[in-house]
């Protein structure tokens, strides 16, 4: 037996009302969450903008840092070459002085009687020239520090470049449109330098001893292998 039409309509209305009540109840629960989300978005947007600005500012400073490193390296090299020029000139003057002192001493020794004291002074003068010459040599050798420092600077430059590339990637993710001449700036880093990231000034010979030991062992192994006749 079918339900009368009016009763059916009543049931439909009741069901709709129940559904509406459910929606209202759910909305009551969701609304505070939605408010919180809106609040979160309001707070996060300025933070993201600030982050964008920081990224942009930091990234724009890195090429300058790299250029500065390059300039320092070049200036140190130029200064070192100038020092080497001066040391070479000093070395030549000292050689001339030593020869002159030797000749004078020889001439005096060959000539009339030379007082022993004067003879001693000529020897002393020669020794002084030799000592000065050795000291010039030592300064020259110490200038290897320029090569080591330049490799250390190149290693730092490489790190700066990596950070810059990472920041650029982040800026792209945030769709920062202000990528001013990004590619031009990256080009500044392309300095043709091969370097050892672990270069260091170590003058107590530990690493040289290790090298000597390995060279000896390799030579011993090579000597023990019978040669093909």
């Amino acid at each position: 037996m079918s339900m009368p039409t009016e009763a059916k309509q009543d049931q439909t209305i009741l069901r709709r009302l129940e559904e509406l009540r459910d929606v209202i109840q759910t909305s009551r629960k969701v609304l505070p969450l939605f408010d919180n989300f809106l609040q979160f978005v309001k707070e996060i947007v300025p933070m993201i903008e600030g982050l964008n600005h920081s990224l942009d500012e930091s990234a724009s400073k890195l090429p300058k840092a790299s250029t500065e490193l390059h300039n320092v390296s070049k200036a140190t090299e130029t200064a070192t070459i100038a020092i080497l020029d001066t040391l070479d000139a000093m070395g030549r003057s000292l050689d001339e002085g030593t020869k002159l002192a030797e000749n004078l001493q020889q001439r005096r020794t060959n000539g009339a009687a030379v007082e022993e004291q004067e003879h001693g002074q000529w020897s002393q003068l020669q020794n002084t020239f030799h000592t000065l010459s050795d000291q010039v040599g030592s300064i020259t050798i110490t200038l290897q520090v320029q090569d080591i420092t330049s490799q250390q600077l190149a290693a730092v430059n490489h790190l700066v470049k990596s950070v810059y590339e990472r920041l650029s990637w982040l800026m792209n993710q945030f769709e920062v449109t202000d990528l001013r001449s990004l590619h031009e700036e990256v080009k500044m880093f392309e300095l043709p330098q091969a370097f050892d990231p672990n270069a260091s000034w170590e003058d107590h010979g530990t690493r040289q001893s290790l090298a000597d030991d390995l060279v000896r062992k390799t030579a011993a192994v090579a000597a023990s292998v019978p040669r093909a006749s």
Partner: protein
Amino acid sequence: MATTRFLVVDDSATMRRIVINTLKTIGYEDVVEAGDGAEALAQLRSHEIHFVVTDWNMPNMSGLEFTKAVRSDDKLQHLPILMVTTRGVKEDIVEALQARVSSYIVKPFTPPVFKEKIDQLLKLVPQ
């Protein structure tokens, strides 16, 4: 041989200068220079070289690649190659020796060590 001709290979002008000065101090005046491995190979083709002093880290062609290229030439099997480099860890030294450098000096070097290695290697050269 009348005089020993050296080939000094280093991308640093300062280091080339220091090595050449040190060679002169210990009595070797005949020196040819190169700024990287590729240039050094060209120098080897155009000069008779008796001894090579090479850096490792160089652009275009490293000292290690240069050594391998030299050793692949039958005529240059006995050419003394002294590597002078900042690379001082065991793995690097072993790699260089496997590439058949004749001896190895870690920068900064001292003239006595430099002379000692050259003397040792020149004694081993077949006359």
